[in-house]
């Protein structure tokens, strides 16, 4: 078997999330260096505050200010911070019960080492320099040798409350496509389109994914198909895609390559968009250095009979 193909894959998305009234008050409060909790149905003060009671599911709206000082309830020493975490130097993850709260908030504690941290340690919030109304407005906690800090007297009402957050998320992968698709991609590099045949129903799948979706069996026999094929159906694209240097309108089509039992899809060129039709015979156009056909163009053959491709629609 040929060497396994691998490629970096980055999945990145800025999630824009709207906030409920309690979340909005809490995060706006952080922006203003005020910490708010919410009174639960059983009278406990929950920090961070939630919109609904964790036990009864009652709607909670009674905001209560708590202090920016508190006590560590459990901790874990992180000697190797990872991307996105609150500090870039070794720190302790902590759950902190703020003075005036009955529950604990998760955050980072900046401390010189694990020997400086213990459950019961007194800590205070270190505010971020720039605050936007997000949990990261708390830069981290730091040890605090003293009494509970005084409250600001906030009622939980602020000018210009935040209505949402933008949470950037990025995950990095090293993707490998598996046996069947690796073989397919490697063949394409030699300008050959190679599908795989199901041992039971004998259908040839292009591109192959390693399994026959009808029979649920591995497809192992490789079958070269094409290079010519038939347009089974198509659409006319009128909207220019971002980062795609193709003039609109153009035609995107399903193409049943000769010998294949599944249509693949590709762009049709070399013919005015309004003359593309079902049954049109096409062939791939390769460009230097590309690992797949740039587009397909008419061969000039007579159109295929509908009966020849109707099962592949």
């Amino acid at each position, binding site marked *: 078997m040929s060497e396994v193909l*691998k490629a970096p*894959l980055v*999945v990145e998305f800025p*999630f824009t*999330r709207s*906030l409920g009234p309690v*979340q909005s008050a809490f*995060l706006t409060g952080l922006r203003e260096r005020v910490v708010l909790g919410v009174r639960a149905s059983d009278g406990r003060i*929950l920090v*961070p505050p939630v919109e609904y009671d*964790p*036990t009864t599911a009652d709607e909670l709206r009674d905001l209560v200010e708590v202090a920016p000082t508190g006590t560590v*309830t*459990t*901790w*874990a*020493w*992180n*000697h190797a911070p*990872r*991307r*996105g*975490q609150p500090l870039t130097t070794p720190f302790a*993850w902590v*759950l902190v*019960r703020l003075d005036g709260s009955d*529950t*604990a*908030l*998760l*955050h*980072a504690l900046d401390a010189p080492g*694990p020997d400086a941290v213990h*459950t019961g340690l007194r800590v205070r919030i270190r505010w971020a320099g720039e605050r936007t109304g*997000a*949990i*990261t407005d708390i830069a981290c906690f730091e040890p605090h040798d003293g009494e509970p800090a005084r409250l600001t007297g906030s009622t939980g009402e602020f000018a210009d409350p935040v209505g949402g*957050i933008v*949470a950037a*998320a990025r*995950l*990095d*992968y*090293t*993707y*490998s*496509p*598996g*046996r*069947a*698709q*690796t073989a397919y991609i490697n063949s394409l590099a030699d300008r050959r389109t190679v599908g795989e045949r199901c041992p039971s129903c004998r259908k040839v799948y292009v591109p192959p*994914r*390693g*399994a*026959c*979706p*009808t029979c*649920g*069996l591995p497809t192992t026999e490789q079958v070269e198909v094409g290079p010519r094929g038939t347009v089974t159906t198509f659409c006319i694209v009128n909207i220019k895609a971002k980062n795609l240097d193709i003039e609109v309108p153009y035609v995107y089509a399903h193409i049943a390559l000769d010998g294949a039992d599944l249509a693949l899809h590709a762009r049709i060129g070399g013919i005015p968009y309004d003359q593309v039709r079902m049954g049109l015979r096409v062939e791939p156009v390769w460009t230097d250095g590309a690992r797949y056909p740039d587009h397909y163009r008419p061969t000039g053959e007579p159109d295929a009979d509908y009966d020849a491709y109707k099962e592949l629609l």
Partner: protein
Amino acid sequence: MTRDIAVVAFAQTDVRRTTDELSEVEMLMPVLHSVLDRTGLKTADIGFTCSGSSDYLAGRAFSFTLALDGVGAWPPISESHVETDGAWALYEAWTKLLTGDADTALVYSYGKSSPGSLRDVLTRQLDPYYVAPLWPDSVALAALQAQALIDAGDTDESALAAIGTRSRRVATLNSHAQIRGPVPQGDYVVRPLRTGDCPPVGDGAAAVILAAGERARELCSRPAWIRGIDHRIEAHSLGVRDLTDSPSTRLAAERAGAFERPVDTAELHAPFSAQEVVLRKALRLDDSVRVNLSGGAIAANPMMAAGLIRVGEAAARVHRGESDRALAHATSGPCLQQNLVAVLEGEPR
């Protein structure tokens, strides 16, 4: 409950650190064929199919639809999917069989964690407002739970090390386990958890077949009857919970009937050593119960499959006559966030 439903077959892959040469469906297909072969059933004979997986693991959108290729889902089959461990897919299939709409169900799940960085990927399941922006990784959260247990006097670092050591020792008898036999306890990953307290990251898949009533007896000489199954969840904010306890596990076990009579075997889904301490307490397991003879999740923890494997391992022991009444537990989320308990029984021999 008006119908008796049993696990009649179980299959799993070897769990490996990487499976670069296989796509998800290529990894899954042998397990599907194996579990069907054990019963002689074909896809067309199966009344309902339910799977569990998460696209985030391999970063592949709609991977569960591609995985269906391995089932042979055309003409269209009756099918569903859960974006969590396959134990919850089994729960859905069990309810489907209870309705009488189907007599047999295929349940499978798979996880290919090797393409990504699992510790980071799992941060994306956390509260998106207050927690996920801090990127607290899965080991860090488990470490907070472990420290809470140590502070409460429920365990200490050497007792935690012993849990991992025992699990990997018994895993020498499990050819599918990823880590079999002794490994050094190692350095802290996130203190107080060391390498030996943490599950290996690996790729794998599992499948079971459920059948109702007489159909189960036809397909299996000693079906593992599901006497009860239930799942419960904790409050989502970690700081609201008592991390040293698992009320949701206890309640699920109670509803599943686990406390009505003693079990002889338990398969616990405790990816981190300290979580076994929590589960033993919540499930009131004493030394008379054989716990995690498979080696458990600390020897092999393929995401989305490890919980279903617990049910499968417990059922397989009933099938083989090695257990008469077994408890299977599955978990999902940080610090045992959600818990499922099933009680399986064999008929008297």
